[in-house]
């Protein structure tokens, strides 16, 4: 091929747009670093909006595949959208490099040669926090998640590694705005730690209200990395201080690729990168490596796949390799929100929770070679 | 006497269908005038054009010497024109007393203005129902309310478009008496009604409209004296 086409479909409008925009910006920063090329080939990146709607996403994906004939796809933020577009993507044998969504279905029984996760499997973050909370010796934990599949999976992931007492396990309606009632119950429960999985605006609402209710003095708040990332911090501010969370990456991680990424991202966009931006960046770098390694012969799907699996790129998170289900095996870190040297409220990486951690579903994956 | 209202060759249409073809008449200060004519001849349309509710396409209207045909209806109303409209048009979501109070004003600077109490005295039935919503009134009660509402603005010119429709005979008599009293107090009035005998007794001047044109004008004496007019234009 003389050039390569990438379809970047992400959530660019509506309440979830912040995440998608970070993926896009991270991806495009990488493209800039690579001089607009993937490997040796000039690259065209088609950016489209999935409108956070599975139906529209499906349609948009078809357009990328059938009309634009893209070679790679990436960008989807939300798992339900990933699941909606997966059949069409796989059918067309287009490589999908996930820059965020990592649903258990695609890690397990429905794993697919064309699907690579450059982020994590959805349970990983929760498992990591579960381990931390367990290790730190908290005895009574309350759990809170929205009532939908990802929420249930999240708490299941947490419980996989947390062995102490769970005093409350609360599922709230997906559209809930006010957590007054839950906070009152929480206070009454006598928990010493709280783990929340509340994506996007839900998390912002909860944390603000949690602090307003004065509960932060009595119990320690934990969350997965994406409930405590820079976008949430920007929206909540001071009340976030002291919140623990897990992540496979942090903007303060000490490796060359990351330093360049973080510095240039701030220069380019005037804000600190989030997890999503890092994943978008890595997705582009992996694509770059694969195209480079097949010497531009992207028609050879087998070769491309092999090159992708090899993952010969400098991930901003340091260690990175693929498991048999083409999900990452990587390290997970504990972060806490504090003030940095410039007085900014941001995440600080504290310690490693898991080393070379895979996921619980790889065993169910019978990946055709 | 100066003319309070002067209508000169007014033409009005609804969309493409013209209804008034040059209507002219005048009402002097303190006079009671009528518009007569069969159903659908353009009486209400004339009233609507005066009030600015349906804009006249041609002609002029002067009120107190000022041209008003291009003014907004609320401006015209505030100059002291009030109407008891055809079909009552009570505000259904306002109580009786609110219907009366909402627009109360003393626009003719009367020394003895109409007030809530005076309206209630005129229509005791309304006092009884003062807290009812407009749409919970009987047809006749609504009619009383519409009259009261117009009186509450103390207008220079009071326009009554079939104000006795649906009123019981006793109340109807009450209205005639009331109009006579008003007239005695110097109130200028334009009446449209089907009880022509009554109007002949009450009013000073009459204008008969036929198919959007004025076909006859004169005073009560002339009208009373010429039954053929009635026969021809009103059908009595």
């Amino acid at each position, binding site marked *: 091929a003389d050039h390569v086409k990438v379809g970047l479909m992400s959530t660019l409008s509506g309440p979830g747009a912040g995440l998608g925009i970070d993926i896009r910006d991270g991806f495009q920063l990488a493209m800039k670093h690579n001089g607009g090329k993937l490997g040796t080939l000039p690259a065209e990146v088609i950016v489209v909006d999935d409108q956070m709607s599975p139906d529209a996403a499906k349609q948009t994906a078809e357009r990328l595949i059938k009309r634009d004939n893209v070679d790679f796809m990436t960008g989807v933020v939300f798992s339900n959208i990933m699941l909606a577009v997966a059949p069409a993507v796989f059918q067309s044998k287009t490589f999908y490099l996930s820059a965020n969504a990592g649903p258990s279905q695609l890690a397990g029984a429905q794993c697919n040669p064309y699907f690579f996760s450059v982020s994590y499997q959805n349970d990983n973050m929760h498992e990591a926090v579960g381990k931390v909370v367990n290790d730190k010796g908290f005895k009574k934990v309350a759990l809170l998640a929205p009532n939908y599949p990802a929420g249930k999976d999240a708490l299941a992931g947490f419980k996989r590694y947390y062995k102490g007492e769970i005093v409350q396990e609360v599922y709230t309606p997906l559209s809930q705005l006010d957590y007054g009632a839950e906070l009152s119950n929480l206070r009454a429960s006598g928990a010493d730690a709280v783990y929340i999985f509340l994506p996007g605006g839900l998390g912002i609402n909860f944390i603000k209200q949690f602090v307003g209710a004065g509960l932060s003095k009595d119990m320690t708040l934990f969350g997965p990395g994406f409930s405590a990332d820079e976008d949430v911090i920007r929206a909540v501010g001071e009340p976030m201080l002291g919140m623990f969370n897990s992540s496979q990456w942090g903007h303060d991680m000490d490796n060359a690729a990351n330093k360049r990424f973080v510095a240039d991202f701030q220069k380019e966009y005037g804000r600190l990168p989030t997890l999503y931006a890092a994943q978008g960046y890595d997705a582009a770098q992996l694509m770059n490596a694969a195209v480079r390694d097949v010497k531009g012969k992207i028609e050879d799907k087998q070769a491309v796949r092999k090159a992708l699996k090899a993952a010969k790129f400098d991930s901003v998170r340091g260690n990175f390799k693929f498991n048999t289900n083409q999900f990452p095996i990587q390290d997970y870190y504990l972060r806490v929100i504090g003030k940095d040297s410039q007085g900014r409220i941001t995440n600080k990486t504290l310690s490693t929770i898991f080393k070379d951690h895979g996921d619980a579903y790889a065993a169910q994956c019978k990946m055709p070679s | 006497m100066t003319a309070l209202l002067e209508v000169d060759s007014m033409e009005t249409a*609804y969309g493409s*269908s013209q209804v008034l073809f040059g209507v002219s008449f005048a009402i002097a200060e303190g006079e009671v005038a009528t518009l007569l*004519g*069969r*159903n*659908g*001849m353009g009486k*209400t349309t004339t009233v609507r054009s005066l009030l600015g509710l349906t804009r006249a396409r041609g002609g002029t209207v002067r009120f107190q010497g000022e041209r008003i045909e291009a003014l907004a209806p609320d401006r015209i109303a505030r100059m002291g024109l009030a109407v008891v409209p*055809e*079909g009552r048009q009570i505000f259904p979501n306002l109580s009786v007393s609110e219907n009366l109070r909402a627009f109360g004003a003393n626009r003719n600077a009367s020394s003895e203005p109409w007030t809530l109490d005076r309206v209630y005295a005129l229509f005791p*039935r309304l006092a009884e*129902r003062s807290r009812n919503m407009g749409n*919970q*009134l*009987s*047809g*006749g*009660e609504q*009619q*009383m309310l519409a009259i009261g509402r117009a009186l509450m603005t103390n207008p220079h010119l009071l326009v009554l478009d*079939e104000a006795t*429709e*649906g*009123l*019981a*005979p*006793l*109340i*109807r*008599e009450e209205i005639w008496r009331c109009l006579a009293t008003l007239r005695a107090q110097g109130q200028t009035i334009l009446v449209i009604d*089907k009880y*022509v005998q009554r109007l002949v007794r009450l009013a000073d001047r009459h204008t008969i409209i036929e198919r959007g044109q004025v076909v006859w004008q004169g005073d009560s004496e002339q009208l009373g004296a010429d039954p053929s007019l009635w026969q021809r234009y*009103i*059908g*009595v």
Partner: protein
Amino acid sequence: MSTVPLLRVLHLVKRFGGLAATDDASLDVQDGEIHALIGPNGAGKTTLIHQLSGALEPTSGTIWFGKQNITDLPMHARVHLGLVRSYQITSVFKRLSVLDNLALAVQAKSGSSLRFWQPARSERARYDAATAVAERVGLGAQLHRLAGALSHGEQRQLEVGLALALRPRLLLLDEPMAGMGPDESERMVALLHSLRGEATMLLVEHDMDAVFRLADRISTLVFGRVIATGTPAEIRENADVRRAYLGDEAEIGA
């Protein structure tokens, strides 16, 4: 009269909060007569009509139509028995032509309307019937005008036409003359006269001239109660009725 009355109202009560708009009213309407219902404004005439037609549920009491107790029947079922009303405040289909207005009314009385396939416009007979009704109420020349563009008086004519098109056995007329000029009122009186024998009528009207000319019997309603029923002559002479309602009008009608 020994026959069963066409309409019998027994001890009917309707309360709106504290107000008894109908207060133990009882009334018979004989088959074939024109029965006028008069009374001061707010006496409860319209409220009574509402209950007879099924638009309002009585608080207590019963309504008989012939031998059938119809107190709990819904409005449409009463229409099919032949109990039809017109409205005091005009209620027509403003965006439809006069003909379409009447054709809809005719349709109500001519078989099921759960027909999903045959073009309704192909039913000539129905439109002919509607045209005939229009002629009858004096709208024969206005067939194709939109009802909303008719003058007030013309709309009142259509209002009555809609009821007539249902070929009622008992016609409840709530102030059919209201808003009509002398000429049209006259024509309406003639029309109602011509309906004699075809339909029984319960006529609410404040136009005493018309009432005295048309009615076989008159009932007077005051504060929701029937205070007197009788022939026009009797009612005209009734002191209570004069005091409560007629005033000097009794002479005018004479």
